[in-house]
């Protein structure tokens, strides 16, 4: 099963704890930032629960602290509960179809928002409650979802293998100049953008993606590529030399760079910046309060910065970048310096084309 970015954040945090890079207190603090209030405990008279669903573990706790608690503080009578079931599109669909919706807010994706919206399984975001101005770009505020955090798929490489450093996706796909195995996620999203840029498309006109050309490049380099499903796996493939260059999430790339004393490096240039879209399933039990929760998450710049420190998730509130501590700036995907060189993912294009394109991609990869 393909792992999602959010799921991987949790794994990453757990690893950092295991390595002693953070302690349990920091961990809990981080988790709270992600919105977790303790699920146990008697429900006070008259309080109403809002259920946030994410991919478990630390994200669970981080979301509670940084998203949940501030909302509860501002809205007495509500409680924000974390569920770590992992809201894959399939699960949300299954839940809505069975008319047993128990979730209010799901940590999904741009594609998920469009697909579910198209099936009538997600609530429209009410932009009279959620403020578009709270996001740094319009790719973070979609019709059926909004993103209080972001992440990026970046180029990472083993600097000991190359005399000159790769600087773009064109270098990535140039096997003659940079020989060795490549590493890509087994999902068309971001991979096809990289291929398009490698084929010479300027960043501004990547969309709509010329899938035929992009897939052609994938097919040509397929034999020299290994594909990853999970974030830890991607990190491990680089670390153990199964591949010398890869496209992986910036969170994992940051870990590699920090821990290898600079042997593994990543570049923000042409990274694909993606929104961490939250989706409200159709007929959610908390009703419109979920919109207010989302608005509060979007508006909470400090919470988002806290999450960056804990999980590496980039803030999306315009006020946040300025509050990021200097040593974290280079790892923040939404730092203005970094945003400038990255390509923002077009969630609507993916939503409209994901099923077909990803199928073609899988067929190409596994052909």
């Amino acid at each position, binding site marked *: *099963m393909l*792992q999602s970015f959010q799921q991987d954040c949790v*794994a990453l945090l757990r*690893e950092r704890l*295991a390595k002693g890079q953070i302690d349990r207190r920091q961990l809990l603090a981080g988790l709270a930032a992600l919105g977790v209030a303790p699920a146990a405990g008697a429900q006070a008279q008259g309080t109403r629960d809002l259920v946030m669903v994410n991919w*478990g573990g630390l994200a669970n706790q981080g979301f509670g602290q940084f998203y949940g608690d501030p909302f509860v503080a501002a809205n007495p009578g509500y409680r924000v509960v974390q*569920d*770590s*079931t*992992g809201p894959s599109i*399939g699960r949300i669909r*299954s*839940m809505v179809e*069975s008319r*047993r919706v128990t979730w209010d807010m799901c940590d999904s994706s741009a594609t998920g928002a469009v697909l579910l919206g198209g099936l009538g399984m997600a609530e429209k975001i009410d932009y009279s409650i959620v403020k578009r101005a709270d996001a740094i770009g319009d790719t973070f505020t979609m019709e059926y979802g909004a993103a209080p955090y972001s992440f990026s798929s970046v180029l990472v490489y083993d600097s000991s293998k190359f005399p000159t450093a790769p600087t773009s996706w064109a270098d990535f796909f140039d096997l003659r100049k940079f020989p060795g195995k490549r590493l890509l996620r087994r999902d068309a999203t971001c991979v096809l953008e990289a291929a398009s840029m490698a084929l010479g498309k300027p960043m501004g006109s990547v969309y709509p993606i010329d899938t035929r050309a992009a897939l052609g490049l994938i097919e040509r380099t397929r034999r020299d590529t290994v594909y990853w*499903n*999970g*974030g*830890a*796996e991607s*990190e*491990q493939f680089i*670390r*153990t030399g199964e591949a010398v260059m890869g496209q992986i999430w910036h969170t994992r790339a940051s870990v590699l760079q920090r821990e290898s004393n600079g042997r593994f490096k990543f570049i923000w240039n042409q990274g694909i910046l993606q929104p961490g879209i939250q989706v409200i399933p159709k007929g959610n039990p908390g009703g419109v309060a979920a919109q207010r929760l989302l608005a509060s998450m979007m508006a909470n710049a400090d919470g988002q910065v806290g999450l960056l420190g804990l999980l590496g998730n980039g803030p999306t509130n315009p006020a946040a970048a300025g509050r990021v501590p200097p040593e974290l700036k280079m790892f923040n995907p939404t730092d203005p310096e970094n945003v400038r060189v990255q390509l923002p993912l077009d969630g609507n294009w993916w939503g409209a084309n994901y099923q077909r394109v990803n199928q073609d991609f899988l067929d190409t990869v596994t052909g």
Partner: protein
Amino acid sequence: MEGAYKPGWFARSTGLIVALYLVLPILIVLPVSLTDQRFLSLPRETLSLQYYRNLFSSPEWFSSILQSFWIALGSTTLAVVAGTLFAIAAWRLDRRLVNLMRALMLLPLIVPSIVYAIGLYRYFRWWDLLDRVLGVIIAHGVTAIPYVVITVSTALAAFDPRLEQAARGMGASLPQLLRWVILPRIMPGIVSGAIFAFIHSWDELVIVLFIASRDVFTLPRRIWDGINENVDPTMAAVAVLLVVFTVLLLLADLTVRKKRDS
């Protein structure tokens, strides 16, 4: 053995090579679990028990082991009770309809578990059994029934049907017959089936991947996550424990069979 026929060198060495191939990956796990390195590899300088210590001090691994154990125990009980009663009745009634039902019992062995898993994934939502220990017990129990039916049926094939008639003729009711005559006789078959059912649940991953999420985190699911993370040799220590545990169960099974055969 009278009339024994000894194979030639070719057959013998081929057999040995295949046996090595069968056992090698299992043997390799042991040295890896004793590594002194930080990631999965053979030990370089010394042997180290650090990953065993890790395993036993980690609440996550521990709770997964515990949960897997209880789930395996529950599903084994379910499978043994249902499967044994079924096998006995099918043996006794032995007619066309019953044999069709018996073929139905074998389906879980035949139908790939991915198909069942996606089926359950929708179905269990109606029953509110997703991510519930009870749900996993039911799923594992149902899919373990064929193991019990097979081993118990095999044991019953050696059971003299006149013993049943004798007991009935002497006035034994159905429960008395089961308790005093049939069950004691086929106990080795039941134990065998129980061991298989237990290992089946203990090892099952695909169904759990679909129907579990937060509350249910069985050992195989934790290993699966660990393989994705791939960093931590603790997994090798878990693997060693799994191998030891499985071998112990198999030895127990062999002993039971030997006792029955004598």
